[in-house]
């Protein structure tokens, strides 16, 4: 049976995700900034998980079934998302030496899940990654008046809260992540520059400088 409430919320989430990705790709076409491609790739990965959920809500097909041991598709995609998220953060912070760390952590979490039926390591990892990323992005974004960074930071924060509070209650989880996507969409749309920080043109210049500084290689 179709679960309409979930489906409507999930659809809003999905459409906002598509629109956010369109915004970042459009900006990338304008300034050819690699960071925007990284953000688009992250949103695409997030939407992949959403497609799995939509199929689950529409049909009786349970795509989030067990693969082997206690590993589900959800856990697998969740780990891929955290890999991309952490790689993105290390890329931003130029921590090249830590690039293999997210892959290794996810490998152990997935392998551990195959042996032991416990979500605790995954939840702890999700909390650390989400809140850590959120803190860094919101702090940097506020300091430099960068709406995209703040949007992503809020996305990680609210998404992480949803993951922590209601991992077993779908309505809480999908509601939180839809709100998270709204904040990201607002960031990609330039909402924060326009309505929270005045003098948007000046701020846009600051944002571009910030992004350029971040991706500039020595």
């Amino acid at each position, binding site marked *: 049976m179709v679960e309409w409430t979930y489906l409507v919320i999930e659809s809003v989430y999905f459409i906002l995700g598509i629109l956010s990705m369109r915004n970042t790709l459009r900006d990338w076409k304008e300034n050819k900034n690699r960071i925007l491609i990284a953000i688009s790739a992250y949103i695409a990965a997030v939407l992949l998980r959403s497609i799995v959920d939509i199929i689950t809500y529409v049909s009786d097909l349970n795509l989030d079934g067990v693969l082997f041991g206690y590993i589900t598709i959800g856990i697998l995609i969740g780990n891929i998302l955290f890999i991309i998220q952490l790689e993105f953060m290390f890329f931003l912070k130029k921590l090249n*030496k830590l690039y293999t*760390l997210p892959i290794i952590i996810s*490998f152990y979490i997935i392998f551990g899940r195959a042996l032991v039926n416990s979500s605790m390591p995954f939840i702890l990892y999700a909390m650390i990654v989400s809140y850590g990323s959120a803190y860094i992005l919101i702090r940097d974004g506020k300091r430099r008046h960068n709406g995209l960074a703040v949007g992503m930071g809020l996305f990680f924060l609210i998404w992480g809260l949803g993951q922590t509070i209601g991992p077993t209650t779908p309505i809480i989880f999908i509601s939180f992540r839809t709100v998270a996507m709204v904040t990201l969409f607002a960031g990609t749309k330039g909402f924060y520059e326009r309505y929270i920080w005045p003098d948007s043109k000046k701020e846009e210049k600051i944002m571009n400088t910030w992004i350029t500084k971040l991706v500039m290689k020595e």
Partner: protein
Amino acid sequence: MDITQIDYIITQLGLFLDGLLIPFATFILGRKLLKQKKATGKYNPIRVLIFGVFFSFSVLGIIELILEYMPGLTLLDEWFGSGITNFNIYGFLIGTMVTFGLTMIFFAYRWESLQYSALFFYGGMIVFFFLTGYDAWLEMYIIITGLAGVIFLYVTGIRVKDNGALGLAIFFTIAFVTIAIDFGDATLNHWVTQISILVYSAFILVFSLGYFRVFKEGGK
């Protein structure tokens, strides 16, 4: 002098070389490391890793010597173990050595994003063991990492003409024979192990005193 007596003498000599000579060589390497730190103001990562390998080996030798002469230490004996199939002190130290060896390669080749990967992987394996008790991959890890390390150390040593890398490659090759290769015969295994200990102990002494200089302009 019959074969049993020769065996006894070689075994005891091997134990003393492992328990006393290698720690002495490690001490010399440690002093060199600190000297260089004083001169340049920072630690040379390759030297730190070489020191790490020798330090692990020293601990191994000292514990073996202690256990041989103090047989009453049952708890230490139990924790120490004897093979690389489980996460005991022996397996842990051998794992640490091969991890440092592989890390050294990544540093030598300046593969930035891989530099800490072996340490992360091995660290993860230890944490995983403490959380789940699972350690079935330790032996495979040691053999694969050890082999990869030895091959790359030879290639590195010859390509960049580095005495340190080549020296470690030779040391690992001899030590690896005693750890990983099973000749299918207990007596042969025993003799190969004892002779290997004598050979690598002599080599370590030469290496740590700085006399191993195959390449005149090389690093060590």
